[in-house]
């Protein structure tokens, strides 16, 4: 079983949304990452083994998953 969480900004067109590997060395979108991480922690019982947060380059899509 897993737990998933996501935040999707509705208006996304007009921003570049290139692919990245999810690592975020510049610290962008740190607030969203933290929110998603805390969200996953609240449903950690669904997936105690591993977890990951991914945010698109322009920050309009944020996802978190734990297994």
């Amino acid at each position, binding site marked *: 079983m897993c*737990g998933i*969480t*996501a935040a*999707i900004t509705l208006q*996304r067109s007009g921003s570049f949304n290139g692919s990245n*590997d999810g690592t975020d060395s510049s610290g962008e979108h740190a607030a969203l990452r933290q929110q*998603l991480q805390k*969200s996953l922690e609240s*449903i950690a019982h669904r997936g105690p083994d591993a977890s990951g947060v991914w945010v698109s380059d322009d920050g309009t899509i944020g996802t978190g998953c734990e297994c």
Partner: protein
Amino acid sequence: MHSDDGKIHAVVNGEIYDHDAIRERLIQDHGYKFKGHCDSEVLVALYKVYGAPGFFEHLRGEFSFVVYDENDGRVIVARDRFGIKPMFGTLQGEGTSKRMLLTSEMKGFLALGWEPQWNVHGLLSGSSMQAHNTVFKDVWKLNPGTWMEVSPDGEVQHHQYWDPDFNDKVSSTQ
């Protein structure tokens, strides 16, 4: 979970039945390059090959997921045919910062700034247990056998990919 070409991103809850055989077919027939052995990767690969709604036909199992397709900027959210795995949603904010929150359990919304309010009418009438409703105001659940797409302009559409098919009771006794 990311596709082999890095264009499709997904978070998946659940399991895909027969994923071993599906994986083999994806490798042999479509040249897909799997990174690991997680069955969720099969879902991403099937989406890459068949798209939505095409890939639902190939997805048997218990699942709820969010797929983001960089190719067309769409977000696809779906739940399995019987709603074995959960998917809750709510809208937050206004204007350009308006966003849709999605989660396996509603408590997951709290860290994203959600302020729960009871669905009073739903609780009193019992409708909170029906259809897409929940016990919280403006929080809905995705119906089983349905998928939702969110376009890059924020347009939301719901579709049904499966409905239980019951034979007509009268004809079966004739």
